[in-house]
């Protein structure tokens, strides 16, 4: 295990003079570059800071797991999987009765969230009719991989792609453009609408893939989570705001590389990444969600579970068999960092396009809670 890291890396080395501001309450000021004449405020419908340490401290590991499942009910499988593995890494002997079922449930949650973003939130954003059939199909298939693959293949073909998922995944750049221009589906039309959008791409660094995290980086994250409460609301990677989620996972896929050639590293590229992952799941090609654990010391463990939106981290310290300290870092917090993607977009887009561009990017980053974005003059 890596030696105890210097806690000073927990403080951000944000490039701009304005210090990183932890999200407090429900509002988060985004910090565009100092020469930008824009002010961007993101408001979440409910407080992001649920302070799990306050309502888990003193609980047994099993009770903590139950509380987490009730509190974080929408993504309970990912949250409980992260909690269980963190507890195990901390030395609590609990057996996952069916590890393979956990992975299947994680996969089902992942696909459901992608489908909700693509087929509910995106049409709503554009004032179009929502298309719930894909989400319902995934929910009805449960965690049965065969049922998911079969239903995804059929519903994706008919509602989103207009072709088989395998055919879609094999498109080259010209084929992707042709699909965009000609496929008789509302999804293709939405990509058409967002293609060549406001000339503003993301140049933000990406959070490394979970599989590639070193023990040292994980230890540093754990120290930051423990020592700086604000870190879990405004995380950074070695001092940098970064993007996580589908883009870092899939930016190298041929279809996404093709899209970048066509339209740039834009909001639509993130939507395409979700569609690619759904299509891969329909062909049985999507990799299993990554799961990592680290034992950080006596009675202290951390676990990370890859979810649709990026890695979900749980860090737990036990004492005498009860929770002493608990931290959760959700993937949305990386993407809605004050100096993150939205700040960058606000800094590069024309004023008259800023409101639309920032709202489109907020959708593309797929926050796990209702948020509204306000763009104004600084």
């Amino acid at each position, binding site marked *: 295990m890596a030696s105890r890291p210097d806690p000073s890396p927990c403080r951000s080395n944000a490039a701009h003079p304005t210090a990183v501001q932890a999200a407090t309450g429900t509002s988060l000021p985004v910090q565009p570059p100092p020469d930008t004449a824009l002010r961007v405020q993101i408001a979440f419908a*409910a*407080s*992001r800071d*649920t*302070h799990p340490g*306050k*309502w888990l*401290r*003193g*609980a*047994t590991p*099993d*009770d903590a797991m*139950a*509380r987490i499942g*009730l*509190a*974080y*009910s*929408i*993504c*309970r499988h*990912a*949250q409980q999987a992260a909690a269980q593995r963190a507890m195990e890494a901390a030395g609590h002997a609990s057996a996952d009765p069916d590890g393979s079922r956990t992975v299947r449930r994680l996969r089902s949650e992942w696909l459901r969230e992608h489908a*909700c973003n693509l087929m*509910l*939130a995106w049409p709503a954003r554009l004032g179009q009719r*929502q298309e*719930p059939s894909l*989400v*319902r199909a995934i*929910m009805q298939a449960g965690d049965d991989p065969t049922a998911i693959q079969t239903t995804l293949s059929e519903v994706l073909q008919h509602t989103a792609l207009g072709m088989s998922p395998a055919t879609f995944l094999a498109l080259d750049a010209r084929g992707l453009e042709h699909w965009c221009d000609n496929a008789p589906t509302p999804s293709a039309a939405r990509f058409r609408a967002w293609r060549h959008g406001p000339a503003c791409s993301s140049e933000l660094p990406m959070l490394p893939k979970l599989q590639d995290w070193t023990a040292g980086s994980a230890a540093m994250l754990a120290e930051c989570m423990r020592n700086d409460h604000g870190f879990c609301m405004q995380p950074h990677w070695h001092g940098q705001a970064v993007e996580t989620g589908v883009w870092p996972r899939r930016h190298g896929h041929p279809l996404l590389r093709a899209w970048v050639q066509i339209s740039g590293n834009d909001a639509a590229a993130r939507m395409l990444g979700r569609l690619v992952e759904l299509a891969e799941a329909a062909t049985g090609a999507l990799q299993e969600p990554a799961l990592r654990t680290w034992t950080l010391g006596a009675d202290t463990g951390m676990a990370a579970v890859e979810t649709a939106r990026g890695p979900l981290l749980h860090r737990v310290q036990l004492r*005498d*068999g*009860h929770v002493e300290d608990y931290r*959760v870092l*959700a993937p*949305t917090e990386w993407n809605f960092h004050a100096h993150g993607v939205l700040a960058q977009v606000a800094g590069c887009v024309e004023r008259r396009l800023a409101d639309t561009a920032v709202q489109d990017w907020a959708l593309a980053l797929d926050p*796990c*809670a*209702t948020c509204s974005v306000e763009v104004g003059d600084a």
Partner: protein
Amino acid sequence: MCLGVPMQVVEAGEWVAQCDVEGTRRQVSLALVGPQPAGAWLLVLKDTAREVLDADEAGRISLALKGIAAALHGETDLSAYFGDLGTAPPRAPEH
């Protein structure tokens, strides 16, 4: 952070329902769960019903969310909110 909120259907519709949460009315999309009768409990995220809940589960989730709020306001005895398994009595923090 994946915080679904239980809401009870007050006025049912085909695609949307008027729901009550803590005395406040919210319009909720039924696109994922289909038409639901008045009195049904829904788990809602971003104004969309994600699941139909039975009353017992709705009650437990609602109480858990109240427990979080209570903890954030400084309460330390949360046993009433979470209905713990009782596998061992909660150890009260020393401070």
